[in-house]
């Protein structure tokens, strides 16, 4: 169990920037997630920690040891690959034992450890199976066992769930989290799925185009995004452009181009916002925070889309300059029709103000 520190790391591929000037500390024992759309540099960063890429500039430290140029086989890491990368010519046990054989453990020790870890991932009966005789989920667990059995200082997971179907993904997600908590190993998890990231992580780093957009706990990232990208990428939201009209103590009043007024709270805004009158801001409104009927920040619009999902009814409501995604929890009420007018309100505490 080690901490990971990344200092001023940049990686260039020819002329293209993979990541730019990254600074980051991952605490020992933490479950840390790199989250972002494909091509954002999350896998590049992970591969530099693993030692498959060397940074063009900067340093990678495990605890206080500089490992920037250390070969991957000397880092004592466990890695789970997106396609599992199991050795197809070996059985389940041989796969798991590989890292132990490299470490020249005795036969009895290897058998013991392999048996124990096979139990941990619930593959007791499968030791002698060939890899191609396993289902996708079982292969995934072999890959995890193989990475964990060597008792790595750091566990690296590169989109490990993306090849599983939806139901299995949820099961495995819980399983990975359970094992990680049990072993307490420092874990770095790469994904583009924000649900996965939110559910599993202690902290999340959101990346875009090789740059860190925000680092924080799931709650911070969701409730207090620093910028438009994070607000938009994490969960669903409506972003409405407005100008700050007035500030009364804790209240901010902002006005859209067409004169719609919104009132929100100053403490519900991004820390990067300067709060000057006349500043351009974005108001973030989560679909689930919009309520039916009159109240604070009342709006009347026309329904252009209705979708019944069981748990909720989703509407898209058109206003003159923007449309609002609205999610109403289904309480057996009457569904409204396309073209009908609808009255909505948003609690002042539910508005969130952002800069660019």
């Amino acid at each position, binding site marked *: 169990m080690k901490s990971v520190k990344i200092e001023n790391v940049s990686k260039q591929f020819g002329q293209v920037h993979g990541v730019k000037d990254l600074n980051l500390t991952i605490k020992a024992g933490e479950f840390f997630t790199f989250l972002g759309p494909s091509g954002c540099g999350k896998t590049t960063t992970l591969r530099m920690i693993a*030692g*498959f890429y060397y940074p063009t500039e900067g340093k990678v430290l495990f605890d206080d040891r500089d490992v920037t*140029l250390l070969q991957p*086989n000397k880092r004592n*890491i466990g890695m789970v690959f*997106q*396609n599992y990368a199991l*050795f197809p*010519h070996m059985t389940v046990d041989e796969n798991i034992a*590989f890292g132990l054989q490299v470490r020249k453990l005795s036969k009895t020790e290897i058998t013991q450890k392999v048996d124990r870890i096979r139990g941990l991932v619930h593959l007791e009966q499968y030791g002698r199976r060939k890899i191609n005789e396993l289902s996708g989920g079982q292969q995934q667990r072999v890959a995890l066992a193989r990475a964990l059995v060597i008792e790595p200082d750091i566990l690296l997971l590169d989109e490990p769930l993306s090849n599983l179907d939806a139901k299995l993904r949820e099961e495995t997600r819980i399983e990975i989290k359970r094992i990680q908590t049990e072993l307490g190993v420092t874990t770095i998890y790469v994904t583009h799925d924000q649900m996965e990231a939110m559910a599993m992580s202690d902290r999340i780093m959101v990346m875009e185009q090789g740059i860190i957009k925000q680092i924080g706990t799931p709650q911070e990232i969701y409730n207090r995004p620093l910028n438009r990208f994070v607000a938009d990428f994490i969960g669903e939201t409506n972003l409405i452009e407005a100008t700050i009209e007035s500030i009364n103590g804790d209240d901010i009043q902002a006005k859209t181009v067409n004169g719609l007024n919104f009132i929100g709270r100053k403490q519900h805004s991004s820390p990067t916002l300067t709060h000057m009158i006349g500043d351009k801001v974005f108001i973030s409104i989560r679909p689930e925070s919009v309520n039916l009927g009159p109240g604070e920040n009342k709006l009347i619009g026309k329904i252009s889309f209705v979708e019944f999902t069981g748990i909720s009814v989703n509407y898209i409501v058109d206003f003159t300059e923007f449309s609002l995604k609205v999610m109403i929890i289904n309480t057996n009420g009457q569904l409204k029709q396309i073209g009908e007018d609808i009255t909505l309100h948003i609690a002042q505490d539910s508005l969130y103000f952002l800069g660019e």
Partner: protein
Amino acid sequence: MEKPPVDSYQDNAWVRLTQSKWFVYILISPLFLVLFAYVVYPFYQTFIQSFTGDDALSHYKKFFSLASPANLEALWTSLYISIISVICCAIVGVTMAFLLERYDFPGRRLLAILVLVPMALPPLVGVLSFTFLYGDSGIFPRALQHLFGLDQVPFSLNGIMGVIVVHTFTMYTYFYLTASAAIKGLDPSLEEAATSLGAGRIRVWTKVILPMLTPSIVASALLVFMISMASYTAPLMFGVERTMTMQIYLSRTNGNLEMAATQSMILSFVSITFLIIMRWYQNRRNYQNLSKGISVHRSEVSSKGMKILATIASFVGTLILILPILVLILISFSVDGAWKTQILPTDYTIDHYIALFTDERTWRPIWNSIQMGVVATLGNILFGVAAAYAMVRLNFKGKTLLDILIMVPWALPGTVVAVNLIAAFSTENIFAFNQVLIGTFWILPLAYFIRHLPLVFRSTSASLVQLDQSIEEAARSLGATWLYTFRRIVIPLTFTGILAGTLLALVQSLGEFVASILIYSSSTIPLSVAIFQKLYAFKFGTACAYGVLQICLILIVLIISEKLSKGSAGSAI
């Protein structure tokens, strides 16, 4: 614990070196050195030799002079034989592919197996059996002569005709293989669609089927043309002296090395041009596999007359394919010197086979070939696996050059490879560790190594491409060094590919004749040259026994490769 500073400095210097972007060039330099020493340098020496003389261009002038047109005639004959060979091979190969893939008739299954028999015949042995069967004193012409009581044989294979027939027999398989693969991929519903739109049989053929087969036919045509240009054994056995390869052989045996070099350069030029066209064509051609789940249904030959005709035709085809091997086996049991004007040999013995393994003088060439073949193949494995790994896994400038340098010796006629080696290694030289290689044991393994460079390389890189790089990374992340990963992961997973190429290279080395005949040393005569010598000493029985042995070896290898490819298909994820 703190490391002493000196140690960490050294550590760091080594790490810096291995992490440097130039390090990869240190890794690949041995590959280029080998190619430079044994491919480029010999070629360059021949190039230089072709320009030596009073006037730098004198040999080229002589080659193209109309006053003594032997050379131009040879060039023309080679081209002419090659073009006719391509046409004949195309007709036989594509027709066979269609008949076997699309029609069902009695004897189809047997024919489908035997159709590849020519591939199991080493070049010299193939020509040999053809002369026994259809030559001037061959079994068939003589049988007809006796049957009809003629004064002389009614027909016989010789000259250019003989060469073309042998080419057709041995090379139609290239067309057959590519065409049958293409036909397998041809969706029959396309034909049905064309028919439903009102197209007649001929229109379906010219507008749908042939255009779809064109890429495979063109690729095979280029290949057959190249091999025909390089053909040496058939002209030699049928006495066609005016071909390029024969001219080179004659110049060399007459001691006119400069002329041999000039002729080699011109032949190389043709071969390499065709190699380039072939590569270009292969890269350009796209596989359009739009249809999913192709179900080929064979039409049954239904009418009674056609059925009889088809049966006879497939019987004749089977006979033609199997006779060369049968005749070899038959003659291998005949007593040397006892077969003169009779249709078939009269006296039989199994002495030749006993002698193969008991008589020191008869066993010697076999042992020589095994030794030289094994040495060459070991070289091929080492080089081929390293080059394949570099090609697939490393990133460096000069990949295309590496690829070309490996392919060129394969495209060069064996005769030219031999002339190049003579030019480079008949004097002491640094690449031969200051030895004269010509006249020693080592020259033939070197020739085999060069001629078969791409075999292990190709098959290994094909299986390496299949191997996901993350599997290697997984092993590294688990703590394995590069070498350990290579041994436990890369080698086992590419083993079938490496073995397939290795076996092919070994078999080819054991049967190699074209380069051997020009540069063998009398102390280490290879098997193929021994066959040739026995033939000229009228020891047909021994020659054929050698031939049968070679065929057996090739069959074993083919069977193993077949088994391997099936086995690997079963265990792949």
